[in-house]
């Protein structure tokens, strides 16, 4: 019976990459990925600006 139970997917690869994040990105459409990247870039730049551009 044990072999019928699916092993959970690993969250990280052997070289430390967050596979759950990749799977989440792959669940999005290209348009959603683009929107996420755009928002993230603007958020990070806004935080940098608030911290004196560092």
């Amino acid at each position, binding site marked *: 019976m044990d072999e019928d139970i699916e092993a959970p997917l690993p969250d990280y*690869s052997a*070289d*430390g*990459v*967050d*596979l759950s*994040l*990749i*799977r*989440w*990105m*792959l669940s*999005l*459409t*290209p*348009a959603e*990925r*683009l*929107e*996420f*990247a*755009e928002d*993230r*870039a*603007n958020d*990070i*730049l*806004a935080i940098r*600006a608030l911290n004196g551009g560092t």
Partner: protein
Amino acid sequence: MVEHKFSATIRALRDGGVDFILVGGLAAVLSGAPVDTYDVDIVQSRERENVERLLAVLNSLDAIFRIQPERRLRPTASYVSGPGHLNLVTRYGPLDVLGTIADGLAYGDLLPHSREVDIGSGLMVRVLDLETLIKIKEHVGGDKDRLVLPILRRTLEEKKKLGQ
């Protein structure tokens, strides 16, 4: 601070009839790789008519070279038709216009390794495939490329598992 509008940059290029391939970080993102990127990187066709179309779009976006922005140096046809890299900033954020990448790979060389992607509202953009992006980053081998390579490789593996 200039707000980054990747989609607006791409739309302006498409509306202007420019032949180009999206490469770099944004190509990786559109392929599903969770990487940060701050600019739009394109390899343009350097055919004369395309250079004219690209220059018209760059002018409409107020594109200037990022280095010494206070001088407001604008790209010219001789720059855009050459193999070099133009690091520009437009009203929608940074835009890198790359005549060639890696060891002189031009638009025509990359075309068979690209595909059209719908980025919303029917807007299609030609994007370099992840396999080629990985090969190029392996070849270039800069510090930034080495950092992102594991993410790109694992993304490619996960895509294959999902049949994407």
